[in-house]
């Protein structure tokens, strides 16, 4: 395990793509969180009372995880790049030639995926702490903290999806395109299903299920408000059911990737 980590970090420590994307993430995600704070405050603040503050617990956790989730596609691109690099440089093959087993090679990549998820989750947690401690007055800062582990699960889910495309397609550019296009395709299908009143099915689609892990902050209130206006309640899975669906997809994507790599020639 330690050895696999050392090998993988040796590969990544001078990878510029990784540095740039992580820096973009670290720099932009607080700004985006602040932007959502501003919007919420401006448009929902009046509805929710004068002393309501989106940056105060418990809503701060929902807010930072929701805003960070917008970067999951970008972080997914890191996963795609890290994996497809090994194919385009033929280094995955060379690693095996040099003496690694296929399981070790795949294990090393899983470690990196988990590490990346851990890093961005910790960063999001720190963001929540900073905004939360400054703004929370009447509540416990840990109130609503359960959003953080759920966000961790969400990053892993998106990365399993990215990993799946990378191992299947093997080429960087093509995998990135497929990865991003799949979001659009799923959204279009979702739109059609919603219009035709089949949104129950859409709720079980992987990317939709993943995104529901970190729903829009104060979603319940928003839905109630919408309900009051139009009388239509959008179908949503119960959060535990949604978590279960996501975990199932994550395991499925990782397992298929593992199986594909194990099975084919390098």
């Amino acid at each position: 395990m330690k050895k696999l980590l050392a090998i993988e970090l040796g590969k990544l420590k001078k990878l510029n793509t990784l540095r740039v994307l992580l820096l973009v993430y670290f720099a932009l995600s607080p700004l985006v969180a602040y932007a959502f704070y501003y919007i919420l405050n401006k448009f929902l603040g009046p509805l929710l009372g004068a002393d309501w503050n989106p940056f105060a617990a418990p809503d701060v956790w929902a807010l930072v995880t929701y805003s960070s989730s917008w970067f999951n596609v970008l972080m997914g691109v890191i996963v795609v790049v890290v994996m497809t690099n090994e194919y385009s440089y033929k280094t995955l093959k060379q690693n095996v030639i040099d003496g690694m087993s296929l399981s070790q090679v795949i294990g090393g990549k899983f470690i990196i995926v988990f590490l990346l998820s851990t890093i961005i989750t910790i960063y999001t947690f720190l963001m929540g702490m900073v905004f939360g401690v400054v703004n929370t007055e009447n509540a416990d800062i840990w109130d609503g903290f359960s959003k953080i582990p759920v966000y961790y699960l969400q990053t892993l889910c998106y990365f399993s999806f990215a990993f799946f495309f990378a191992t299947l397609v093997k080429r960087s550019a093509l995998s990135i395109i497929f990865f991003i296009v799949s979001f659009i395709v799923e959204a279009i299908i979702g739109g059609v299903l919603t219009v035709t009143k089949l949104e129950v099915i859409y709720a079980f689609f992987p990317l939709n299920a993943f995104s529901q892990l970190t729903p829009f902050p104060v979603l319940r209130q928003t839905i109630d408000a919408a309900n009051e206006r139009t009388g239509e309640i959008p179908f949503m899975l119960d959060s535990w059911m949604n978590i279960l669906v996501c975990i199932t997809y994550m395991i499925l994507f990782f397992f298929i990737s593992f199986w594909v790599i194990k099975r084919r020639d390098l």
Partner: protein
Amino acid sequence: MSEILQTSGLRKVYKDTVALNDLSISVEKGQIFGLLGPNGSGKTTTLGILLGVIKPKKGTFSWFGNGQKDENRKNIGALLETPNFYPYLNPVDNLKIVANIKDVENVDEAIERVLKRVNLWERKKSKFKTFSLGMKQRLALASCMLADPEVLVLDEPTNGLDPQGIAEIRSLIMDIAREGKTIIIASHLLDEIEKMCTHVAILKYGELLQVGTLDEIMTQDRMLMIKAEDTEKIKAVIDSTDHISIIDEVVDEILIAVDEKYTNAQINQTFAEKGVYLSGLRDHKKNLESTFLEIVK
């Protein structure tokens, strides 16, 4: 002598082409074993199977009498097809990864030793992607030697290099061989094999045609270089004669293989009886190239 490699009935099929059929060879310690054959004869497939990156459809192999364990490859230095490294890393960082995989001790020392040996120590800070093909190939050799393995497996190690590069790589390999390491080398460059190898296996369309020491392989039929006004007529005669066969056409001469029982005079007579008079007939000193052409024809 102790056994380094044993294969038994290796077979690989791609869609409906048989890339390798029933390959059984054994390599012993200290041999320089050449795997020879035209492009597409199954050399790289064979090495890919032995190095764990291609799954055979049938058959087994065993390294060091220790089966097909992944661990075995840590004691093999291998270069398959192309030098594969991380382009954005310098040679030291690249070799550190290999050292980690192969559990090399005293990593920094080992890296300095091999990089000096292949004359890349001065370029230790340059990224791999700035290297010329010759330098990449040399780095691959350095990587092969890093863990001081018992066996080197080299696939077309001089492919795509200029004459100077070829000479450099070749003398490096000869150097390593002198240390008593076992080397398995695949190539279609016959003089390369002839200059280096002690043992040779010849493959064609995935079939093993011949295997043995270089001397054994070379004692095939005698060879003659013949010449006549009308080469078409010569060919017609050869086609109708059992103990003569064409190996190669060289400008206006034809290289033939003849059964050892026949003398040059008898051969001349054979042609004369069929109405073809040779204007030239001389013994051809055999080399691996002509032998190879005879075997795979």
